[in-house]
Structure formats: structure tokens, C-alpha cells
């Protein structure tokens, strides 16, 4: 994987811990906040965080999506009782954010900080430099006020001192605040680098009663490939799935299979009623098969995205194929269906061997496939492909199910139009 979003709660807790460390105590941010999920024991939470009952609170869903204010999902300036009532009402509620639909399960609760100023800060990485954007005009209108943004570009191996920052900050910021803001940006950037963040954004941040910068909102992403060196610093971190629909049980099953295996097994169900099912070897090839189905105008019939690679064993390919066949053969509506068993030319994977598990599953689903009108289209190359393809051809005769089989002499996606023609009933 790579860049993974983390919850606001985790971003703030990491900042609370490390801003002080990297700035030798100069930057103060207490990071007071609490997380509430369906399993939270509210009484225990209150015991550990007595401030919850002593201060005015803000409550927001903490589910990696934005525009929470606009969607009326934020409680401002409430008591602990207000907060509990608000959470009780919203917990488990299905909402729609853009294309994604899902239920709210996580909230962040923080002290309400009265403020007038809303500043903006973001740090993003680039190939040769990191980009730090600061604006005294943050908040919901940041996009409209983008001309007010001050940008610092820090080359990969360079440093950025508070002094340099301070010199570039706009003149209308009071001197005292300028110094604190500059020290804050310097420290945030250090945390960003040292903890392998790939995104940090505060929109907005303000200043607390002592004049210390205070992020009201925080978005963070970590580079999870750095886990081997940074996971101690990250502590007990969670990488939630992007907000969106729940996984189908079949997707969950394959995801579990994938996490236990050294190989890669991926399944996304796009349309369970779709009539073109795919099971493609290789990450690159699987995307191209899905692309081609979409590009040739059959996106409505594309049932799934499916990929297996990294030399899965026979048991794994069997379970993988079985899961897809089970989905593909559920509707016996008399309409034609196609299963694409595709792939490019493998480097060193023994094609005949990887087909073994698939063939086992196909045998098992022989009757169901017939009832669901499934035809199979195979294309693959690589070591021992001749034997693998011969096995598939023989299987077609054995099962009495049309299996069209092609090798490297045929263009990789040639089977897509063939499958489409059949599905269209032409």
C-alpha cells in the first residue's frame, strides 16, 4: 500500500505528543480529544477524561470525510449531555457523502475553543520538495481566498527555520503571534518529516487563550511503507477503510484470504447483477481488462474487479475462483453471462499450476454455470502456458461448457469483445 488516511483523533494525538518534543517544549498543544465508537464505554471515557464534563464541547464524525459542517454533522458549544444525545442520535446513521454511502461509527469530541481567527496550514510532499501552504484566511472559504496563501517550498534534503518562516508571514499579523505561528509551522513540518506523514492539513487552526496555535480541524495521511521504522512512534494507529459502503461478505472473505497470504488476492464487487465477471492474473492486467470493458461501453455489465497475483497456491486460487463463481451463478434468469479468466504473459509463474485451483472450482460449479448461462473466456501466457491452455480446452469438453482459450499469439484483451458479444446476445 502507500499513503493511508488516519483519523483526526490520531493526527491530533500524534501532534500533541511530538510537537513538544521536536520543538524542545517551545510549541504547546495539549491535544485534548476523545474518540467515541459503538463500543465505547461512556462512563469509563468520562473517568479518564474528566474535562468532558467540565468544558464546553465540539463533536464531529471522525470518518475520513470532510464538509461535516455543511452536512449538519457537527455539534458546537455543547455540554457532555448534549454531546451524548447528539452521538446517540447520529451513531449508526446512514449518510451520503459524494458518491460514498455509509454509516457513522466514529466521533471525535474536543473542548470548544472560542475563536475569531481562522488560519490555514497544509503540508504536502512532492518528488523534489515539500510544499507548505499557510494562509491567514482559512476556513470554509480557503479556496476562494487562495491568492492569500503563502507558500514555502522545501527541497528534499533542506531544512526550514522558524526565522525564515517568520520573515515571509504577512505584515498584518501581530509580532507575538508571528513568532508563535512560525515556531508552530517549523515544528509541524518536523513532525511531518519525522513521522512519515504524506499529508497534514489544518483548516482551520486558531489560537488558544494563551495565544498558542491550536488546530480546530486536522487531516493526516501516513506513508504505511514506513511502518517498519516508524510504527513505534505511531503507536496504536488505525488505518480505517475509506468512508463508503460496507464490504460484501464475499469481498470480506477475499480480503481476509489476502491478508493471510503472501500472494495478492483482490475482489471488488461493482454490480452483483452484472453479467461480465473477471478473474485476472496480475495487478496491471486486471486494471486493463476492467478498463477495456468500460471503454467498450459495457460498464453497466461489469460485475466485479478481480485480481490474483504473486504466485497464490492451489488452495488459494480454488477459494478465489469459487467465490467469484458463486457470485456469478446466483441469477438463473436465462440471460447469458461471461467469465473472463485473463492475464498477460507471466514472468515465471507456472500457468498450468495456477490453473489447477481454478479448474477444481469450475468443475464444482459445472451445473450452476450451465443454469446461469455462463461461458468462459481464457487468455494467458508465460511458462508452461501451452499445458495450462490445453487443460482449459479439455475442461470445456469435459464439462460441456463453452470455454474459449487463447494464448500470447492473441492480443491480451481480445476476449473482452468476444465475451461482450455473447452477453449482448449477438
Amino acid at each position, binding site marked *: 500500500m502507500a499513503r493511508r488516511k488516519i483519523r483526526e483523533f490520531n493526527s491530533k494525538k500524534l501532534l500533541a505528543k511530538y510537537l513538544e518534543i521536536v520543538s524542545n517544549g517551545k510549541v504547546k498543544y495539549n491535544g485534548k480529544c476523545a474518540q467515541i465508537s459503538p463500543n465505547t464505554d461512556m462512563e469509563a471515557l468520562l473517568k479518564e477524561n474528566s474535562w468532558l464534563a467540565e468544558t464546553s464541547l465540539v463533536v464531529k464524525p471522525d470518518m475520513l470525510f470532510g464538509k461535516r459542517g455543511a452536512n449538519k454533522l457537527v455539534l458546537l458549544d455543547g455540554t457532555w449531555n448534549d454531546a451524548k444525545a447528539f452521538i446517540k442520535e447520529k451513531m449508526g446513521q446512514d449518510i451520503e457523502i459524494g458518491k460514498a454511502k455509509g454509516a457513522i461509527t466514529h466521533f471525535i469530541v474536543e473542548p470548544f475553543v472560542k475563536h475569531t481567527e481562522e488560519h490555514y496550514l497544509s503540508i504536502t510532499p512532492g518528488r523534489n520538495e515539500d510544499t507548505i501552504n499557510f494562509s491567514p484566511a482559512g476556513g470554509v472559504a480557503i479556496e476562494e481566498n487562495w491568492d492569500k496563501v503563502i507558500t514555502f517550498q522545501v527541497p528534499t534534503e533542506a531544512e526550514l527555520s522558524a526565522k525564515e518562516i517568520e520573515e515571509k508571514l504577512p505584515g498584518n499579523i501581530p509580532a507575538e503571534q508571528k513568532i508563535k505561528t512560525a515556531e508552530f509551522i517549523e515544528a509541524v513540518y518536523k513532525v511531518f518529516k519525522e513521522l512519515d506523514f504524506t499529508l497534514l492539513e489544518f483548516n482551520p487552526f486558531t489560537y488558544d487563550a494563551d495565544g498558542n496555535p491550536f488546530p480546530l480541524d486536522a487531516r493526516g495521511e501516513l506513508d504505511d511503507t514506513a511502518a517498519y521504522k516508524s510504527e513505534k512512534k505511531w503507536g496504536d494507529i488505525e488505518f480505517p477503510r475509506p468512508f463508503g459502503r460496507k464490504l460484501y461478505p464475499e469481498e470480506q472473505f477475499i480480503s481476509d484470504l489476502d491478508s493471510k497470504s503472501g500472494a495478492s488476492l483482490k475482489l471488488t464487487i461493482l454490480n452483483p447483477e452484472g453479467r461480465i465477471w473477471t478473474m485476472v492474473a496480475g495487478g496491471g492486467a486486471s486494471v486493463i481488462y476492467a478498463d477495456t470493458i468500460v471503454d467498450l461501453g459495457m460498464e453497466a455489465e461489469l460485475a466485479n474487479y478481480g485480481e490474483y497475483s504473486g504466485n497464490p497456491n492451489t488452495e488459494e486460487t480454488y477459494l478465489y475462483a469459487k467465490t467469484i463463481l458463486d457470485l456469478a451463478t446466483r441469477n438463473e434468469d436465462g440471460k447469458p453471462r461471461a467469465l473472463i479468466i485473463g492475464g498477460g504473459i507471466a514472468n515465471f509463474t507456472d500457468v498450468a499450476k495456477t490453473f489447477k485451483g481454478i479448474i477444481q472450482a469450475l468443475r464444482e460449479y459445472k451445473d450452476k454455470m450451465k443454469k446461469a448461462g455462463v461461458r468462459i473466456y481464457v487468455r494467458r501466457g508465460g*511458462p508452461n502456458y501451452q499445458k495450462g491452455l490445453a487443460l482449459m480446452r479439455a475442461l470445456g469438453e469435459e464439462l460441456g461448457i463453452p470455454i474459449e482459450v487463447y494464448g500470447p499469439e492473441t492480443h491480451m484483451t481480445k476476449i473482452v469483445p468476444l465475451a461482450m458479444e455473447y452477453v449482448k446476445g449477438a
Partner: protein
Amino acid sequence: MKFTKDTRALIYNFKANPVQRMLDFDYICKREKPSIAGLITPGSTGLHKAFFGGVEILLPIYPSIEEACKDQTDADVLINFASFRSAYDSSKKALEQDTINTVVIIAEGIPERMARELIDYSKKRNKMIIGPATVGGIQAGAFKIGNTAGTVDNIIACKLHRPGSVGFVSKSGGLSNEMYNMLAMTTDGLFEGIAVGGDAYPGSTLLEHALRFEQMPEVKMIVMLGELGGKDEYTIVEAKKQGKLKKPMVAWVTGTCAKVFPSDVQFGHAGAKSGAELETAEAKNKALAEAGIAVPNSFEDLDKKIAEVYQELVKDGTISPAKEVEPPMLPMDYKAAVSAGIVRKPSNFVCTISDDRGEEVTYGGVPISEIIENDSGIGDVISLLWFKKKIPRYGSKFIELVLIIAAEHGPCVSGAHNAIVASRAGKDLVSSVASGLLTIGPRFGGAIDDAARYFKDACDRGLSADEFVAEMKNKNKRIPGIGHRIKSAKNPDKRVELLKDYAKKNFPETKYLDFALSVEAETLKKANNLILNVDGCIGILFLDMMSSCECFSKKDTDEIVEIGYLNGLFVLARSIGLIGHVLDQKRLKAPLYRHPWDDVLFLNEE
């Protein structure tokens, strides 16, 4: 940076397979020198044996990058097979070397910031990185990186053993084989192909390689395969617009299906993430097409697009199609030939007692887990491995009893003495124990088999005890297993008593023991110390165990006695004691033993 037929590489953290694959490629390309100059395994030295065609060559193994570079000054490429955890340090070290111009990083999962630091450093040193997260690349007929392009069959089928006219660059390495195949069918083939890797920040970019191709006179057209996510493809668009890329170009960006996915999906590559509109495959394909690059409507038409551009270049004379070259025949690997059923070979060894090829070792056909689960003992293991039989527990316990009884007999017997002297001479455990074991023979511990032989023969022939004693006397032979230097009828050997008691209690019958005891009664008439000794007792009771448990045929028993299995029991048992003596001497730090002169009678002639 340009690869040629003379390019040579160092391989860091080498694996035998990619090394052999590179050498096989070199051979079918008729390279003069192998493309691998040396191998680096941190902390190791030595030589690695590999094939160059039909003959074997030795590749030097170096303990560090510095040493390899000092020795192999003509190697300017380092292919780094280090894991994602150690790839940063080794790649940095490689970039520090003046002789290295290109570092290929195979590992996937290097943190972004580390990749960026390597990129930064490589630019300062004016060097090139290919990767991370890549299979590498290939220059047809000249130089192949690691596992690129798969098997030799595929390499020849894709005409990669000789140069064509197309420069190809992609993010994905997994699809490069597919593309080389496509190029072989639609054009005169590949000149050079590079997979920059799927990370967000590849060490060298699509554009850098496209610009390299632009500089190579052999490359007449460029094909690029991009993917959704990131903005690298736009640098190609810009370069095309600015006239920096003049050669005809075909491009396709994969990931047009992302729009039908429910939420943001991470495809296989770290860099392949659907995000902003600008980073979609559609937007990139559109921008590439608008810049004057040939872009098909879908991957389905990519081959036609490439063929069109190529044919145009042939027609206008830019390309005169590369001539076909017959690659030399590469001898097939013996293993591959066997698995293909092409060759057979008589084996030099036969083994009938154990098999370690499966998931679990088997002893005499029984998996070791079964042996452990059944609560069997070392006697059962001996029985399975020596006799290839499962015997009743009373039999295997008898074997264990023998091991216990014969394990040790004090420091003064010849075996222990030798072991102690050898150990005190500073020899290691194995040598000292072996020195003791070598004394086992006809005079020391070796009488078990002989006793079994003679008593079995006599008993089976139905001789009476006195007939047997008389027969032996006539032959002028001592009866093996009878007689002891110290023990006598009045001072019986406790060990013999224990064995006899066990057999009487547990064996269904003891006909050989009964016969031996009647023989002992005869010999005792002649002298008080002519008792059944421990060797004799073990040998004879073994006969009883075999004949009473119904697991051994007559043929088995004859064979066991004839080959001399039973001395093995003494060797095994006494090894325990000998090891104890050697360890004891080491523990005591006993000095070299020198036998005193006064204990030797010197009789030298004047």
C-alpha cells in the same frame, strides 16, 4: 546513460535464479563477456558457479559494495535485490561509488521520503536510479536487468535477443512482457524497455527515459504505458509540446475503469490511486492525444495504433526492419528436462529407510509426528531405521534397555581410554569420540554379532549344549559370548541378570536364551569365569526377540545376523558414554596426556 553489449553489472544481495537468467540472456545475445561482473553478499566472500551457455563460470562474491567496485571497475550498473528495509542504505552506498552510474532498486515498499532522498542524492551525483518497485528493464540483444522478460523461451518469442526499433517505457513491470510480445507482433521489436516502477516517486521518470530514447539513434519510435494517479504523464505532454520529444510516440494510460468504482480504490501500485480529476486516466489520455501523441480509444486498439505508426515509419524509410537473428541454442537445464520428461538418468544412490522430500520426514515410511504422537521410544526409531519394521513395544523397550546397559563401562576400557587421550590432545568432540569408537571390534564390544551367529547356528541345527561345546573345542575356537575377565559364577554380571530378567518377564518365548544357559552350565564345569557375558546375552536375546515377535522372517533374521546389525547397538550405546568422557575432559581442562616411560618396557637392540 546508455546500456550496450558491453555493459556490466554488480548484483547486490544476489539470488541464483536472476543471475542465471541474465547469463542465459547474455549467451543467446552472443555477448562476448557475461553481463555480470560480480556479486555482493554482505559479509561473504568466495565464488558463485553459474552457466554461461553450456560451460560453467565462476563469479566472484564480494563482502561489500566498495570492494566489488574497487575490483570490477568496468561495472557501472548495480542491481540491488536488497529488501525494502535495507535497500536505502545499500543504494546510497552504490550511488557514492564513482564507478557506478546506474542503480536499479527492485524492492517494493521503500518509504517515500527515503526514495526522495535517494533521488536527491542521485541528481547531485549525476547518476540514474531505476525503480524502486520494478523488475528493471532490458536492452534487446545487449543487457537485461534481473528477471525482466521472463523465460528464455519468451525472450526469443518476443525477439528480445536482437535489437529492434522501439523504445518502451512503463510504470508497471508486470505488463512489460505483454508489451514486448505486442511489439514483436506489430513492429520489428524492442530496442530498449524500462519499467520505472509503480511508486509515487520513481527514481527515474517516464519522461527521463523518453528523453533518453529521443537521444538514441537506434530508437525510431517510442511507446509509453502510464497509469492513473500522479502527474508524471503530463511532463511527457509538456516535453512533446515544447518539441523535446520529436520521435513518433504511442501512449496509453491505464485505469479508465476507476470511474465505475464505489470509493477511492488503491490499485496494485502505490502511485496508482484515483484522486483529483487531473490524475485520472481519461484526463491524461486526452492531454497526451492533444499534444500530438497517438493514443488509442482503449487498450484493445493499442496494438493497431502501434502497428500504424510503425508501418508509416517503414513506408517513409525511417525504419528498415531489423534482420532476424538465429539465437544460439541454449542447453536445457537438466531439472527442466527431467520435469518435461525429455531425459532420464540412472540414480547413483538408493535409500530405503527415510524420506525427507515431503512436508515431513518419514522414518521407515512413518511420519515423525506419528512416532511422537504414539509415544514411541528411541527403540522404535532404531527398529524403523535399521530393520524397517514396527516391532511390539516390549521389543523396542528391549533395545532401549540394551542402550542403557551398554552406554558406559568406566574410563579404563579401550574405547573410553582412547577418547580421553584424544580429547586431552586438544582434539574436537567428533574426532575424540571417533577415536574411541574405532577401538570397537573383535576384542572390544564386538562379540554381539558373533555370539548371535554361533548360538543361532547351533540351536537351529538342534545341537545339544555339550555337542556344541565339543564342536567348538574341536575347531579350536572360543565360544563368542562366553567368558569374562573379572566376573564369574559367584560374582555374576549384574547387567546380564537385568537382561535375562527382562526377557523372561516380557518375551513370549526365550528358546535361544535357554539354549545359551545350558551351554553356560557346560562351560562352567570347566572354569568358573566361563559365564554368559553381556555381549553374548544381548546377541542371544536379540535372536529371541526376533523369533518371538513375528515381525521377522527367517530370511530377515539370517540377514541381520550375517550383516552384523547388532554391533551397531554397541556402537550407538557406547557413543553416549564416549561423548560423556570427552565432555568431562574438556570441562576439567585436562592437559595433554603423556604415558610415563617407566610404564613401558624398552627392549631395544644395542
